[in-house]
């Protein structure tokens, strides 16, 4: 009976930085005269090893039906490096404002205890009068 209740070695024990991600700015807004507005975000890999990161539209953002494109969505980052990520909000109609939350995180191959994520609030507005 006791044997059935022995618990296998539990979880992950690490003594070094296991998870990290950096993103900025955390808030950005912009006005455009066209149907698309782009934002540059800076993604940071603070590790001393290369890792893959993904950038995505946060699930809390109302459905935007494919109107937000991210380039690249997945990036292999060199150690302790930064890179630009382009976020484009498309199909803006005159006078429309679209708010979107874009997040970045490291792609994990295993379950982790505290999963680190950084999110940026972006607001794109097209000039003109709402029809």
């Amino acid at each position, binding site marked *: 009976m006791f044997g059935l209740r022995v618990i296998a070695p539990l979880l992950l024990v690490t003594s070094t930085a296991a998870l990290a991600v950096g993103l900025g*700015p955390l808030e950005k807004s912009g006005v455009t005269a066209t149907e698309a507005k782009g934002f540059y975000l800076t993604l940071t890999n603070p590790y001393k090893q290369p890792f893959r990161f993904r950038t995505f539209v946060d699930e809390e953002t109302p459905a935007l039906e494919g109107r937000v494109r991210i380039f690249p969505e997945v990036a292999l980052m060199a150690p302790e490096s930064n890179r630009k990520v382009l976020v484009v909000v498309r199909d803006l109609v005159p006078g429309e404002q679209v708010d979107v939350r874009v997040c970045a995180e490291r792609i994990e191959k295993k*379950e982790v*205890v505290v999963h*680190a994520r950084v999110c940026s609030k972006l607001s794109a507005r097209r000039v003109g009068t709402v029809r």
Partner: protein
Amino acid sequence: MLKYLLASAVSVAGALTFPASIQAEPINFRATLLVSCIIVVTDGALAPNGDYTLLSSENTGGLPATATVTALGGAPRLTFTAPTITSSADVTGVTPQIRYVSPGGANQPYTSSQTTYNQSGLLGTYTVNAQASKPTGFNVGTYTIGTVLTCSG
């Protein structure tokens, strides 16, 4: 001589009354600081209590997780999602909890709900503990309690 005096007078008057040739350009230094956030996390470990009814990072053999949040240009908002537990064993009905503290003032008691904390300084170090209880005892398996720490503006 008169011509010389007249020319000199015109010259002096010109220098005094037409200072347009003096250029004054301001020298400015500008910087636009944007808020960014970097999170570095170390994982923790869970350990059972004596009768295997409580898995906790605060039991002997357990280890808390730590999260270091560096915010440049402003104070961020941190969100810990409601913790989840996953296992190869049955965890039906088991509700995991986390708690966290920081020298900067965060002091969240054990909770199974999502919590938010507004970091006041540029640097925050958080110690995160996790636990889950099962009155009938945990069976053989590997257990993971997880939460998502989100830094946002």
